[in-house]
């Protein structure tokens, strides 16, 4: 294989993506009874940046008798070369045919990656649908954030791992190892797998409860991680502070899905940070979570890590800061840095509807502090098309931008202030209080974007917007049922791949794919009835449906729910693990 690859590697762009050989590569030659391949349905640069698959890859390799390899979606030029030379998709580490692995896992990160699953299965030489893959093919399983509603891609997989891979991936791999030793059939293996926590087997359609780690502080976390030889998207080491989010923004799927909230201890994190810096040589370290400023020990953590980072000439990055708890002192030595805020909606009324608990005064005080410290770039994120939104709310976005300009004029330390406003289009996602809501029409999306384009023609303000057409397809793929799978295959056959890369996205082909496969996609854009059975109801993600419904009604009334740090709101996720000490 390696000999044949030599011929084609110099014909493709960035061949370093296909050869592996990264620093800290686990031992691939150890005695092994179960060989796993983790696939990521996007390019190397994206996949290597993903902390979830990174954790699982090293976790499996640290287990005795188990070897785990990787495979990323090859770029189009590489795929063409593979086809031309009759070569199957191969693993990065030992250049093995993926079909020869004992178990193959896919990470499904977001909806616009669905066609890439089919693309990769095609390049592997495997039938797309699990029902067409006999005993000669290894079981193919999926995990990742998209499993909140696995139905649209469920027919491609033998099993879907709902919840945290540290638990269910580990268990299913061990189960398969045992089944393999005892020569148990794939069918029987899947029967047994369906009894594990957080394993949904589409052919059995078994009700599934999400697998959740009880104690994150004691959970596996790798610090001897792969350091790539070429540039990747997030080229730095990352520590994960906590899982879950206490805020309950009503549009946010991650905020509900990753509950309950579980933190790592400050000392554990400092230890991980030091080990990571020493083992990788990265010059940047980032603190990651859904809402880093809500971490209970943030001040202590940043103080402790900063000392260690300075010693090693490593820069500290703090993403995902929520506006309300932004602390200027953290930014003291970050003059000229850029600052990202996500008020999400332009008026207080709408922010109450979506439960983004930020007051106008919070925005004012945080920004003033930041500007006084010399912040030169401010990025503002908003969502358009939220339930109950009117033009007044859009005008609110314009008003906030003007307010920032005024504040800079009054208090700004830097001469110039660049403001970037980005809007995305609201997608009513499963497992949120807005899961029953419709998505606004394409025409309405364009009208709202035009309104902002017109009104944000202000000096030093740049407005960028998310492709409306992509948001429509994303909504269908997020909310669909099993019928969507055949449209995904059709879309792939029509040439849709790497849909999340805007240059590849083709709306017309998608619409054609829905029509030709007989899928009424409008059904999933319209709202759902409250008493209707939803495609993802068979998955118990923790948060109760009644709770989501209650939140929906509060939203319509414009009433907020406080975050659950002080007091439990009773969403139901604490049945898996205790939220707070």
């Amino acid at each position, binding site marked *: 294989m390696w000999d044949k690859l030599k011929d084609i590697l110099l014909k493709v762009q*960035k061949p*370093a993506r296909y050869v592996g*050989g990264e*620093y800290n590569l686990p031992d691939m030659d150890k005695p092994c009874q179960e060989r796993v391949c983790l696939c990521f349905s996007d390019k190397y640069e994206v996949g290597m940046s993903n902390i979830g698959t990174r954790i699982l890859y090293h976790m499996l390799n640290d287990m005795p008798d188990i070897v785990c390899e990787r495979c990323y979606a090859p770029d189009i030029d590489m795929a063409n070369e593979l086809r031309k030379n009759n070569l199957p998709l191969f693993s990065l580490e030992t250049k093995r045919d993926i079909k020869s692995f004992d178990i193959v896992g896919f990470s499904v990160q977001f909806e616009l990656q669905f066609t890439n699953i089919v693309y990769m299965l095609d390049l592997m030489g495997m039938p797309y649908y699990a029902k067409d893959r006999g005993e000669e093919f290894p079981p193919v399983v999926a995990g990742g954030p998209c499993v909140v509603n696995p139905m649209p891609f469920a027919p491609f997989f033998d099993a879907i791992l709902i919840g945290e891979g540290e638990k269910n991936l580990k268990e299913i791999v061990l189960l398969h190892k045992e089944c393999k030793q005892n020569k148990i059939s794939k069918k029987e293996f899947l029967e047994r797998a369906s009894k594990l926590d957080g394993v949904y087997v589409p052919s059995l359609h078994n009700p599934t409860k999400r697998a959740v780690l009880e104690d994150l502080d004691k959970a596996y976390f790798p610090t001897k991680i792969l350091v790539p*030889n070429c540039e990747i998207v997030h080229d730095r080491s990352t520590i994960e502070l906590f899982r879950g989010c206490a805020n309950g923004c009503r549009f946010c799927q991650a905020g509900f899905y990753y509950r309950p909230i579980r933190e790592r201890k400050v000392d554990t994190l400092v230890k991980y940070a030091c080990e990571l810096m*020493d083992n990788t*040589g990265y*010059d940047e370290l980032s603190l990651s979570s859904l809402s880093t400023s809500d971490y209970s020990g943030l001040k202590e953590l940043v103080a402790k890590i900063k000392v260690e980072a300075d010693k*090693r000439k490593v820069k500290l990055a703090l993403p995902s800061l929520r506006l309300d708890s932004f602390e200027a002192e953290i930014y003291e030595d970050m003059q000229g840095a850029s600052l990202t805020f996500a008020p999400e909606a332009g008026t207080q009324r709408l922010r109450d509807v979506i439960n983004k608990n930020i007051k106008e005064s919070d925005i004012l005080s945080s920004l003033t502090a930041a500007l006084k410290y010399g912040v030169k770039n401010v990025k503002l994120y908003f969502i358009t098309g939220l339930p109950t939104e009117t033009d007044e709310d859009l005008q609110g976005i314009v008003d906030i931008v003007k307010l920032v300009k005024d504040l800079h004029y009054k208090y700004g330390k830097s001469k110039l202030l660049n403001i970037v406003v980005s809007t995305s289009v609201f997608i009513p996602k499963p497992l949120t209080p807005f899961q029953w809501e419709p998505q606004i029409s394409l025409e309405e999306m364009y009208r709202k974007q035009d309104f902002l384009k017109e009104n944000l023609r202000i000096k030093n303000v740049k407005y960028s917007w998310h492709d409306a057409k992509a948001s429509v397809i994303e909504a269908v793929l997020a909310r669909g049922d099993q019928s969507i799978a055949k449209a995904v295959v059709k879309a792939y056959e029509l040439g849709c791949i790497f849909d999340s890369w805007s240059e590849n996205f083709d709306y017309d082909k998608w619409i054609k794919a829905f029509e030709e496969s007989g899928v009424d996609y409008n059904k999933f854009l319209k709202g759902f009835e409250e008493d209707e059975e939803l495609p993802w109801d068979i998955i118990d993600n923790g948060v109760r449906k009644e709770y989501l419904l209650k939140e929906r009604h509060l939203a319509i009334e414009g009433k907020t729910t406080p975050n659950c740090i002080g007091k439990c709101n009773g969403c139901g996720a604490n049945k898996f693990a205790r939220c707070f000490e």
Partner: protein
Amino acid sequence: MIILKHLKVDDISYVSQKDVLRVLQRGLKRAKIDVKYSQGYIPHMLTYTSTPVPLGVQSLAEYFAVECSEKDKDEFLRKYNMSMPKGMRAVASYYKEKNPNIAAIVKASDYTVKYDSKLPKEIEDIAKMQSYVIKTSKKGEIIEKNIAPMLYSLKVSDNELSMRLASGNINLRCDSVIEHINEKFCLNIKINDIYRTAQLVESEDGFCDVEEVLK
């Protein structure tokens, strides 16, 4: 200043020069070598590399120099090798007070390439010509280039080809030469089978290995 001679083989031969520099610098950090930084707005490590080999070509003689507080060249080599990917292992190290500026003083490189069968002796004739024009691509465009002044020698022995080509400011790419030979003699020599074996500086009687200067 420490100067390292290192390999660029196997997987690493497919890593571009820009990325190689990053791999080197991360390695120095992991090795906890106290490297000096520039004094600019965005400080960067003071490291210097030699003229790179084309992507896909392997090398047994790459050099890079590091401004650092470490004076013990053997200790440097030991620390470095413990924190680098296998394909970039160092094979020798030197200590110099002043930066020898390898990229500027190197004028030629030696390459060898093995083929899976006997190579035609006629290949050697290319180096005997007064003028020899080949087609090669530069930034996506096909250009004609007279390589005779930059091609110092070509030797065939059985299935092995050795060449000495201009390297540095005036540079002849070894992959262009091999591609031309492949086309002219209907061969299929793989670019990845080319090894750079030495980098050379000018001396009284022609060329000598750059290592002589570093010793």
